[in-house]
């Protein structure tokens, strides 16, 4: 299949909700004892039994198989969704995680080796990031941001410091201001320089006695490395402020450069992006937080410790200055185990190669596409880059049209209209796992879209033609919310879909 022709249409399936397919007695299996309806009703705290659909096995399997055919995942093809690092997830990590899945968290003897693996992952992440201590419990990137900012808040409180403002460059991830706000800080957006990275001289103008921290994404959402990070860290530290780094783009620098060496005090990493675990509807995620030594006492409870005999255990009493628990039990353990398997299977050289190949792939695409699409910043980029619709817009073709047309060529669209510093942004991140042939096919498809935009722009307005659902009226959908009842029936008076 080349990048010159549309993919064939997906099977047209209108798959109803599973609840609507159920009827009493369809599932002829005998329920196992704990789920016996008479017994469960007596269990304390269970309340009403869940309204599970009564369906047969074959209907259930077909239901999910049909839905999966309407889906598009990284196992189907390239998924260049910028900032999300949709890399292929090696199946060996699934194998290894599955082996630990039967262990019950209350079985302390069986959990000991699991805790040992988790401690090992903390150490590896510390080494990769150049940080002193780690907590694996946050369940996703934004949860990691919140946890990290709570750690900073607690550290400020502990030294009797009342500063409350967090500065956030306009090239940071969109979740950053929200996380700071929830952690009780006020946020202030600051412009990055004309070159697409934060210049220390700009930061200096915004620093004052109320600056608690700077929250920077590095490399940032333009794919540009924050080259003044060293000077920025020095300015902040002199001012008594912390440097928080959003490590969601660690994939671009792991094994090459370490945030700790750049002066970062606190950061999170996204195991589900950088360390190859499923995400994007396939989750769950994991957003470990890493800190410099002085912030360690404030990390979430419980910490993993070694007892007198050297065995791994969870601390019984949390550190008095800990921010407390941020997740039930031990975060998303299976994601952590997959990430550890990923790190060990690649080794230090492999991780470095993953990072450099991710940048090489992105640079290859950028160089092949920059004559056809507007490139907002000339500054060299790493693992992703941002194009815009500036050249196509005059002919009436927008970023949204191009994203939808890409679907007809068999690709997941890139991230669109983000970062906000580029109008009509198309943010492309191929990741290191795409073979050259797939990159070339993507270039072909983009060349076709550029030609289509010049010659028959109206054609792009009709895409996607091959997807199970054609162009969605997003404006209508956002203005006319239809909420369904939990049983799947449409609210009275609303039109069916």
């Amino acid at each position: 299949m080349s990048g010159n022709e549309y993919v064939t249409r997906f099977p047209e399936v209108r798959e109803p909700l599973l609840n609507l397919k159920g009827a009493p007695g369809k599932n002829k299996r005998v329920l196992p004892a704990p789920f016996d309806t008479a017994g469960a009703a007596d269990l304390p705290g269970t309340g009403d039994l869940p309204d599970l659909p009564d369906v047969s096995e074959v209907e259930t399997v077909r239901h999910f198989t049909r839905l999966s055919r309407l889906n598009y995942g990284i196992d189907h093809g390239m998924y260049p969704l910028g900032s999300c690092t949709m890399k292929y997830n090696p199946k060996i990590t699934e194998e290894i995680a599955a082996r630990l899945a039967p262990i019950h968290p209350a079985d302390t003897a069986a959990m000991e080796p699991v805790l040992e693996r988790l401690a090992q992952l903390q150490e590896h992440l510390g080494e990769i990031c150049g940080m002193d201590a780690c907590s694996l419990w946050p369940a996703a990137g934004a949860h990691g941001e919140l946890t990290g900012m709570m750690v900073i808040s607690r550290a400020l409180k502990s030294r009797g410091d009342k500063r409350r403002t967090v500065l956030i460059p306009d090239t940071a991830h969109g979740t950053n201001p929200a996380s700071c706000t929830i952690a009780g800080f006020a946020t202030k957006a600051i412009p990055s320089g004309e070159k697409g990275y934060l210049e220390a001289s700009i930061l200096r103008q915004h620093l004052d006695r109320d600056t608690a921290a700077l929250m920077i994404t590095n490399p940032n959402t333009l794919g540009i490395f924050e080259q003044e990070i060293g000077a920025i860290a020095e300015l902040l530290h002199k001012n008594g402020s912390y440097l928080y780094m959003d490590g969601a783009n660690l994939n671009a620098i792991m094994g090459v450069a370490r945030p700790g060496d750049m002066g970062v005090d606190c950061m999170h990493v996204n195991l589900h992006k950088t360390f190859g675990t499923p995400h994007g509807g396939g989750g769950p995620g994991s957003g470990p937080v890493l800190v410099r030594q002085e912030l360690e006492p404030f990390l979430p409870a419980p910490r993993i410790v070694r007892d007198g005999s050297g065995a791994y255990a969870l601390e019984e009493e949390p550190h008095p200055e800990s921010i407390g628990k941020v997740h039930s039990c031990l975060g998303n353990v299976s994601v952590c185990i997959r990430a550890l398997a990923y790190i060990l299977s690649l080794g230090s050289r492999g991780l470095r190669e993953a990072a450099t190949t991710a940048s090489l792939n992105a640079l290859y695409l950028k160089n092949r596409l920059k004559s056809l699409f507007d490139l907002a910043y000339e500054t060299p980029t790493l693992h992703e880059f941002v194009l815009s619709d500036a050249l196509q817009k005059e002919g009436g073709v927008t970023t949204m049209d191009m994203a939808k047309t890409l679907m007809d060529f068999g690709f997941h669209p890139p991230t669109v209209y983000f970062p906000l510093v580029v109008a009509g942004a198309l943010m492309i991140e191929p990741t290191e796992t795409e073979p050259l042939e797939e990159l070339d096919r993507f270039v072909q498809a983009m060349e076709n879209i550029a030609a289509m935009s010049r010659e028959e722009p109206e054609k792009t307005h009709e895409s996607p033609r091959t997807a199970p659902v054609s162009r969605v009226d997003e404006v209508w959908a956002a203005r006319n919310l239809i909420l369904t009842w939990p049983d799947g029936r449409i609210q009275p008076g609303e039109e069916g879909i």
Partner: protein
Amino acid sequence: MEIPEQLYYTEDHEWGEMVEDGMMRVGITDYAQHELGDIVFVELVEVGTVVAKGDPIGTVESVKAVSEIYAPVDGEVFKVNGALTDTPELVNQDCYGEAWMVVLKVNDPAQVDTLMDARAYQAYVEAEAK
């Protein structure tokens, strides 16, 4: 792009109109509504909120992005346009008229003179588009 002569403008693309003794009606400009695209949601602060120049007075959401609206000057929110809750599309249809967002009781009339006039805003937008 429409930039009415009698209004004041900010670098964040709000407009302000002095309506009566010390009251300023505020909304977003034609350029802003065009850049945002179809507006699907508008949320405004409550009447009585005291704001400083640059403080958020509301949020507009399109299918592309969520943006904050900032107070052009220091003041107190005197009125908000409740109609925008149910009909956010007014912002796209009539941004200088029916889709005004708040009325501010201005603290310091001298601050109004620091805002851009129509000609300065025109030049500002042209420079930004480059």
